[in-house]
């Protein structure tokens, strides 16, 4: 339970603790000669109440990393912890519960159930769990994302940006330990994209949430606290306090590596 005092953690200094951690994380697809190594002994820590971006060229393993950290995918070897819980080795049922109660998701598209209105979509994970949302927190999330007068709209009545904001609110509503966002701005125009990124930033700054975002847009990555660069299944670099230009420069070097 966060108290209002704990919310402005950014001002309170560097983040305390680790939200998720992986050690020797390896993921291979197939076997024998056709085996593809998606993740190659990755060690990573995701800082609590921070906004981490994961970047890398296509096929670098960034989505796989996110899926493994979120308990969506099984690992070939290595261990993954969410907080103090080791999630490698958990059964399907425990993983489902873990995702439901402790993790929030945002996807590139098809984020919302077309049959439910915005509010119902936002509270869906808690409804599934049979828990009541904390009304104060919910109100705060809805307010922060500017969705107050859109709550009874169906997804088809909302713009793409509004839909993604609803998805963002859904990820935040259960106050998860970790939010994973997979290309959240990929399907949005630049203005809506900026808006959504702003909200993610605010979720970290004002609501003390932890966000991990996979993207290949340097501009989006620039909103994060830390960028992790992946290539060929390994974390090859990281960049604190990134700017769009710096990220772009770094990404160009991947192209160079590949061309040579």
């Amino acid at each position: 339970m966060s108290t209002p005092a704990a919310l402005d953690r950014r001002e309170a200094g560097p983040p305390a603790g680790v939200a998720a951690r992986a050690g020797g994380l390896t993921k291979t697809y197939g076997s024998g000669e056709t085996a593809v190594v998606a993740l190659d002994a990755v060690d990573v820590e995701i800082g609590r109440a921070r906004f981490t971006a994961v970047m890398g060229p296509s096929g670098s393993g960034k989505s796989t990393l996110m899926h493994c950290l979120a308990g969506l995918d099984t690992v070939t070897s290595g261990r993954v912890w969410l907080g103090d819980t080791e999630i490698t080795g958990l059964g399907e049922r425990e993983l489902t519960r873990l995702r439901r109660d402790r993790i929030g998701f945002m996807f590139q598209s098809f984020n919302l159930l077309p049959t439910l209105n915005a509010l119902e979509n936002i509270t869906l994970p808690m409804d599934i769990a049979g828990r009541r949302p904390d009304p104060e927190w919910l109100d705060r999330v809805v307010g922060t994302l500017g969705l107050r007068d859109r709550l009874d709209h169906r997804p088809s009545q909302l713009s793409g940006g509004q839909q993604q904001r609803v998805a963002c609110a859904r990820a935040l509503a259960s106050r998860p330990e970790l939010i994973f966002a997979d290309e959240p701005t990929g399907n949005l125009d630049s203005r809506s994209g900026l808006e959504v990124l702003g909200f993610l930033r605010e979720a970290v700054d004002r609501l003390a949430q932890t966000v991990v975002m996979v993207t290949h847009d340097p501009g989006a990555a620039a909103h994060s606290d830390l960028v992790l660069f992946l290539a060929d299944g390994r974390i090859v670099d990281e960049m604190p306090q990134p700017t769009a230009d710096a990220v772009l420069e770094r990404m160009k070097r991947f192209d160079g590596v590949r061309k040579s």
Partner: protein
Amino acid sequence: MLKATLRSFFAHKGRMLLSALAVVLSVAFVSGSLIFSDTVSRTFDRLFASTAADVAVSPKEAFEQNRGFSSGLVPTLPASVAEDAAKVPGVEDVHLDVEVDNLTVTDAENEPLGRTTGPPTIATNWYVSDRSPVELSDGREPAGAGEALLDKDTADRKDIGIGDKLNVIAQPGTFEAEVVGIAKFTTTNPGATVVYLETAAAQRQLLEKPESADPEAGDAAPATSVSVDAAPGVSDAQLKKRVKEALGGEYAVQTADEQAKSAAEELGTFLDIIKYVMLGFAGIAVLVGIFLIVNTFSMLIAQRTRELGLMRALGADRRQVRRSVLTEALLLGLAGSTLGLLSGIGLAAGLIETMGLLGMNLDAAEMVVSWLTPVLAYAVGVGVTFVAAYLPARRAARVSPMAALADLEIAEVGRPMRVRAVLGSVLGVLGAASFVLCATADRTRDSAVYLVGGVVLTMLAVVAAGPLLVRPVIRVLGGWFPRIFGSVGALSQRNALRNPRRTGATAVALMVGLALVGGMSVAAASMTKSFDEEIDRTLGADFLVQSDNFGPFPREVTERVKDAEGVGLVVRQRFAPLRVTLPDGEKTSTSAGAFDKELDKVSRLEYAEGDTGAALAPGHVGLQRQFARDHGIRIGSTLEVEFSNGKKAELTVGALTKQETSGGFGAAGGFFLGMQTLEEYLPGGQEAVVFVNAAGGTDVDRLRASLESGLADFPQVKVRDQADFKELIREQIVVLLYLVFALLGLAIVIAVLGVVNTLALSVVERTREIGMLRAIGLSRRQTRRMIRLESVVIAVFGALLGLVLGLAWGAGVHEVLALEGMRAFAIDWTVQLAVVIGSVLVGLLAALLPALRASRLNVLAAIAHE
């Protein structure tokens, strides 16, 4: 384009599977019933052709007797006919035939050998000719009285062997016979239980000598017919002419072809009924199949909107798109028809096997597949698929090239349903009007026609308007889901509401079968209640003595009843098949009941005019007022009546009853007359019912006991009080009802496939959505429940539509029955409740695989799916 079509067909073959199954089932039913009836009629044609004598001489019968109301009289001819026939030039051989079916044969345990329903028990005389359908497979021929052969099928079934004793309860008297041999059918055994006796013994022990027998015929015992075989070089027709000349016009003389033809005709009516009933159900299966196919194609096209748009963008014109979809339908139809035809052959084989269990041994038969069967199979299979795919194909052709570019979800969801609303209301109003006409019509036939019209119109109305009813009904139906099943319940309800067209079409397919079940059950319940009331109102006797199949029994039974201790009054009833020429010139074949004159003491007939005494007086007759009115008959009218032995009489109408039930089909007019009148014209029949009243001061239970012990030798008859009699009637109706339910089962199976289909395709369509739900924490079990609840709500929706429609149809059927005098209306709520509960089970069953599939969905693959 064709290549693309073929690719698409094979790419979607999994999704086509259930539609194909519907085609297969429909076609299988159509072709199976055709093959079965062709096989049976061919088999019997052969049997008749091979066993008929070149020329047969038999007593003249005025008209075909109605088997349900047999007089129990065996028409005979004197044995001298055989001697006369033998003298005719060109005759090679003459045989006397004695064959009766008005008897019961029991084993040592006093159990009848024959079955209560179905094929009869026959006793006949044994002689061997090249026409015999049987051969002696074991033992020896019967050499005199007290010896018999038994057919092998019965012997095997009843475990009777050589040396066992049989009891033959024949009209002249019961006698015992020892089985000395077993006769095996070399051709098809039609299922009868057959006992063979030595000819002289058969003549003496099976046949009564007619009282009016010509004294000059001397002591020669009668026969039932004479078989005459032609010498080589003499044709059947020539022989027939000569025999006829020699014998005069007193007897019926038929060639082998004519005998086979009349036998086949008799059987043909029965086979036709089976055939049309089965084709009727095949029709329902086809109808339900159409819904399923329409739905599948609509869904496939909705899913492929983009692909079709791309084809249009690349330059395919509308006709090409439409043709492409129709080609897929054609392929589906061809594949389904082929499999259906093969399944139909299997189904026919199964039916033949079933007939074997019922006693009709068709083992020797080879299956007949006439050219018409495959033609019809393909016509039905391909035709149905084509028709069903036509609308979706047109819709596909309307997909704009823009669809390839736009990110449309499902294009058809939002389309307004104004056309459906208008069509549904118009059809509904017409249907309702038809039902009103049905209720107000005076004649049964008109009323029945309006009923059929009303049924078809209201069904089409619901088919058209079904999708419109989805929202309001499912809102209410699934309204409590969220409260009980939480958000999973809410999701299910919303999913069912999501595409009303699809939900509607799926539910409507289920509705058709269930509406028929509901309607039939209302009709059956109303009939039962009417009969119950009728029995209460009119039956005054303490007991009825009657056989289980309502058939006549030997007169000795009546003697035993009269002799039983405590019996006060006995009133006999016989049936007399009649042909009546009505004053309006119409001729009607019916059956009259003949009663002893104390009828009033065992029955409470209500008369409009006249009384029992007047109706039963010699030379008089009574009938229903309504029938009399319809045909211009009044008290005192004379009716020209012909009995089954060809005797004609002028009977005076003595009384008109208020009786409303006609007493069963084939007994139009409710004619009844005095036993004395019947004996005068048609002597020697058997009683079908004996009414018994206790003597003063005798306890009915004591009477029952004494009757039962007195009748112990006649296991085919039972002593029944009113309650037992009601139960007997009820059982008859229930058996019929279950038969209909079993056949409707097929329509329901197809409808269930439809629900499976809809759910399976919905799961595919919502792959991403389900993946997302799983990602954010919906457990596998919750996923399964979500699909299951959606399925249940669709099924229950279908069941409710079906029930409402079924009740309306049942009420319509009741209006028709009321014109036949069955006025009571009753609803069997257990059946209605069973339908609703059954539909929940259907929903759960249908959701089994789709739910499993949804819950096993690979979450990562689902959210990455593009």
